[in-house]
């Protein structure tokens, strides 16, 4: 045989064929085929969660003031999920969309994992990691330097509200340090506090016995859109639906078909900003038909005569319909007016009627005029401090029984706060954060240093440009943020806070809850990163500064301060995590409600921008799926946001189909939304859920920081608007702004 090319080819083919046949009878091909499929079932880049012993630990959620009792499910020491605790006084087993996702705040990419110091220019995003010792001494040295230079009033502090031990510690620090510039951003609940002082002369916050009320008039309060303690509200709503012996009626008076309006028994659409006038018109009906509670009005109110006269002359429903009815077609106006009247009558005739206010999820203040009008309705039907189903005043808690603040000469000296206003509030200038940027930019002194604790002013304040300019002027910004939030980008040094699961946090009575409840979060997991509770950070800063400041903070740590602050509640809180004052009775003796005659229309807050240039009005849309406060959405929450609110990276605005047609837009059209303060590219969603002439802008989008899941999505509502001051309080009560779509 010759080994030529052909034969060689033949022989090798035969060999290969033999090999092929052999491989069929050897495990090689079969085993490798099987193994490769098993490999695809266990790809090394697909994570395998570690197994272990499951345990549950209870705590109180501190992500919002809602005060829900939650439990964390742990696998060994690893938290894997949050669930509601059955029997929790506020939430009884329920949990909200934010509470469910707290672990994404713990482990997410936006978490600040260690103290940081700015390395590059502001906003450049360059940071160096520093130790806690370095961070504390950096801050205390800077503050000591300013104080030494007689600049103590040039240090500002922004906290998240007035309530709670952490805020109190920061307030105390500012007092000892000698600066009057401690601020927080007012909400609808601050408005209620102010109104309670004005109408009832009490220091306290508003509570609503919604579970027992049987006829609820909601003036724009997004009861199911995050208002109050959200889980409690959902449960109250379900109770209304279950209560078929005495059906509970919810009437939503709202500019748009919000979720609350959609779930209400009746939605009465109005033009935004006319809530007060509509309330006055209802008062007109109730008084005209003689349906008001004479006993209450005669014995427990003052100023009724003036009120009566104003209402009778100026707030006839027909008159109010001219400004408040969203569709000015005669037949519809007639229908609308009849509806208003019949609802007012039903309200007055109900056994336990209750009227409430709130501007969507309630984190925006309400004007005193509007509140006066709405509270007048409650007074007319006697639902203020009523036994059941009414509005009660939860008295302010006593001051924490801490030793008095030690003041040095500098701190004792009077210094005016940077923010001044014509209005007056219970807390002085403190809850007028909305006026701070303007004050800083107004060039008189300004601030040299700012502590930002639990707040995110760059995001939450109206007119972002103004806020940014103000922040830019401050030399030294200290952020205590746990997440890389919007304000974080302007900070010079970060002292990252724990997430509540890692620390001790108190949760005072949730807004709107009708009984004093106090919750305590206790650490249920070990701190995952190098973070520290804000309370501990400020105590350590105080101690590092020495002198009277250190003397004012005599505690070993935040835990001690907390225990002392909680006083007689501590034992209950320590063991159960929650304290409920079941015996609470609202103060009634000698309490008189004061009617304000000038309540509704005259004081209607007018908006910036001319009608000619800006024919449309922006009105915000709130949904519980979008966090609007200092804390942004979590990745899971963003995932649930509708594509009629956010599409890719663009904000979607709601426009009535007719209005859209009028301006030549179709579903999904791109448009420029322009207001007197800003411009943004948006997409148009044609909707029947909003009145013609309005542009519904979802709040809670457009964060400039955070991670790829949360940041850079849409436009922040606050960048589009500018603050409008309530003449009574100075709060920012802008309910929208004029705009145009091109």
């Amino acid at each position, binding site marked *: *045989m*010759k080994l*030529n*090319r*052909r*034969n060689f080819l*033949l*022989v*090798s*083919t*035969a*060999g*290969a*064929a*033999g*090999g*092929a*046949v*052999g*491989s069929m*009878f*050897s*495990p*090689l*091909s079969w*085993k*490798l085929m099987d*193994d*490769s499929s*098993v*490999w695809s*079932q*266990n790809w*090394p880049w697909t994570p*395998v*969660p570690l*197994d272990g*012993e*499951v345990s549950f630990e209870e705590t109180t959620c501190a992500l919002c003031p809602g005060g829900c009792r939650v439990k964390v499910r742990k696998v060994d020491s690893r938290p894997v999920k949050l669930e509601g605790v059955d029997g929790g006084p506020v939430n009884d087993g329920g949990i909200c969309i934010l509470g469910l996702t707290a672990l994404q705040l713990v482990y997410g990419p936006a978490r600040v994992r260690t103290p940081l110091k700015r390395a590059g220019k502001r906003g450049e995003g360059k940071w160096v990691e520093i130790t806690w010792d370095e961070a504390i001494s950096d801050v205390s040295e800077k503050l000591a330097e300013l104080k030494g230079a007689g600049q103590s009033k040039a240090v500002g502090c922004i906290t998240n509200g007035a309530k709670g031990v952490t805020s109190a510690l920061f307030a105390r620090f500012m007092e000892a340090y000698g600066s009057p510039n401690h601020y927080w951003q007012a909400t609808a609940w601050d408005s209620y506090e102010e109104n309670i002082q004005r109408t009832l002369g009490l220091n306290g916050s508003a509570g609503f016995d919604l579970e027992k009320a049987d006829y609820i008039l909601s003036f724009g309060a997004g009861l199911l859109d995050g208002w109050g303690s959200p889980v409690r509200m959902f449960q109250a709503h379900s109770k209304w639906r279950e209560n078929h012996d005495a059906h509970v009626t919810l009437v939503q008076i709202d500019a748009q078909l919000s979720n609350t309006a959609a779930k209400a028994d009746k939605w009465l659409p109005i033009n935004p900003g006319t809530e007060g006038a509509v309330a006055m018109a209802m008062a007109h009906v109730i008084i005209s038909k003689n349906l008001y509670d004479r006993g209450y009005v005669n014995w427990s109110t003052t100023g009724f005569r003036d009120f009566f006269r104003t209402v009778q002359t100026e707030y006839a429903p027909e008159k109010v319909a001219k400004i408040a009815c969203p569709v000015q077609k005669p037949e519809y106006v007639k229908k609308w007016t009849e509806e208003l009247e019949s609802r007012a009558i039903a309200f007055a005739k109900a056994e336990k009627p209750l009227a409430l206010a709130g501007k969507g999820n309630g984190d925006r203040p309400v004007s005193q005029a509007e509140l006066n009008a709405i509270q007048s309705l409650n007074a007319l039907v006697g639902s203020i401090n009523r036994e059941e189903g009414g509005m009660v005043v939860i008295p302010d808690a006593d001051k924490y029984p801490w030793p008095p603040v030690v003041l040095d000469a500098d701190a004792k000296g009077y210094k005016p706060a940077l923010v001044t206003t014509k209005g007056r509030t219970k807390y002085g200038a403190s809850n007028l954060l909305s006026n701070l940027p303007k004050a800083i930019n107004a060039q008189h002194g300004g601030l040299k240093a700012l502590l930002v604790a639990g707040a995110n002013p760059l995001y939450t304040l109206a007119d972002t440009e103004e806020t940014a300019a103000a922040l830019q002027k401050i030399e030294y910004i200290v952020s205590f943020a746990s997440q890389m939030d919007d304000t974080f980008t302007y900070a010079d040094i970060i002292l990252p806070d724990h997430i509540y699961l890692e620390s001790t946090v108190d949760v005072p009575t949730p807004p709107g809850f009708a009984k004093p409840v106090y919750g305590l979060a206790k650490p249920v997991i070990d701190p995952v990163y190098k973070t520290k509770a804000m309370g501990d950070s400020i105590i350590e800063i105080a101690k590092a500064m020495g002198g009277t400041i250190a003397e004012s903070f005599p505690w070993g740590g935040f835990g001690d301060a907390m225990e002392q602050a909680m006083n007689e509640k501590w034992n209950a809180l320590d063991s159960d995590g929650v304290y409920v004052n079941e015996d609470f009775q609202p103060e009634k003796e000698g309490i008189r409600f004061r009617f304000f005659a000038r309540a509704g229309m005259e004081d209607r807050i007018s908006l910036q921008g001319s009608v000619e240039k800006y024919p449309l009005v922006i009105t915000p849309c709130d949904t519980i799926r979008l966090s609007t406060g200092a804390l942004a959405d979590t990745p899971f929450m963003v995932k649930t946001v509708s594509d009629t609110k956010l599409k890719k990276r663009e904000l979607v605005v709601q426009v009535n189909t007719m209005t859209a047609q009028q301006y030549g837009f179709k579903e999904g059209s791109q448009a420029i939304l322009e207001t007197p303060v800003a411009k943004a590219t948006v997409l148009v969603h044609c909707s029947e859920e909003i009145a013609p002439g309005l542009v519904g802008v979802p709040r809670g989008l457009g964060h400039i920081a955070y991670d790829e899941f949360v940041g850079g999505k849409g436009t922040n509502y606050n960048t589009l608007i500018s603050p409008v001051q309530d003449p009574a309080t100075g709060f920012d009560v802008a309910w929208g702004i004029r705009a145009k779509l091109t």
Partner: protein
Amino acid sequence: MSGPEKTQQNGATHKKEDSAGVFAMSLFAAGIGLYVSLFVGWLVLPELLYSKQHQPIDFNHAIHMEQVDGCTDCHVFRDDGTYAGAPTLSQCIDCHEDVQSVEPDPEDENYEDLMKQYKAEVKFVEEYVANDKEVPWLIYARQPDCVFFSHAAHLNSEKFKVLEDGKIGAPPVEFEDDEEPEDARCNMCHMAFIKGEAVPFGEAESLPVYEENRITTYSRDIWGRNFSGFNKHYYDSAKMDDCAQCHNDQRNEGKSKDACFVCHK
């Protein structure tokens, strides 16, 4: 090189004898190919496919079984009914806070074995107990993430029957007074393969070598040691088919398969 025409001419003259030669050569080549591929498949592949790893501590089950009452004394169930698997350091420390055994005397009868045990314990105490470090045991029976296995169900279910020698298809063992030892149940699936022999773990004096499939990361005990995939005993392997077979035979009395979600998660 010769052109095609030339080959053709050669072919004409030598066609007959040449084709016989070519045929023989081809046959031979085919045989070689067959042999090589069988050799590689059956003998070389298993050696390449599995990594051989030794346990961090050569644990002696047999000695420990003298001290405790059955497998679940150490391989415990938690209160929620889940099975905890290999004991944790905290369990071991109950007895082994310090070295328990005495260093054997070279005169001893089985000095080498005793020395091995002694060294293992010293290693355990020095490396793990002293440093409060969990022992990274290699788990022979570790199932992939997609599998749910309830030890409680298998330990307590009346439908689960211990079969003679753990043989597939063998009759159930009749226990006196229904006093079925729990170890018998464990041994239905968990046996130690030491030097090719299946030994109940409770009697094993050392731990088998842990073999891990380099592609799938499965323990060899899961896919089965028999490379052809044929098994005689339930404990020979623990693949899905094996579970399904047992569920068919025992749980459903040969009538049906179970739903996927019984064993998957």
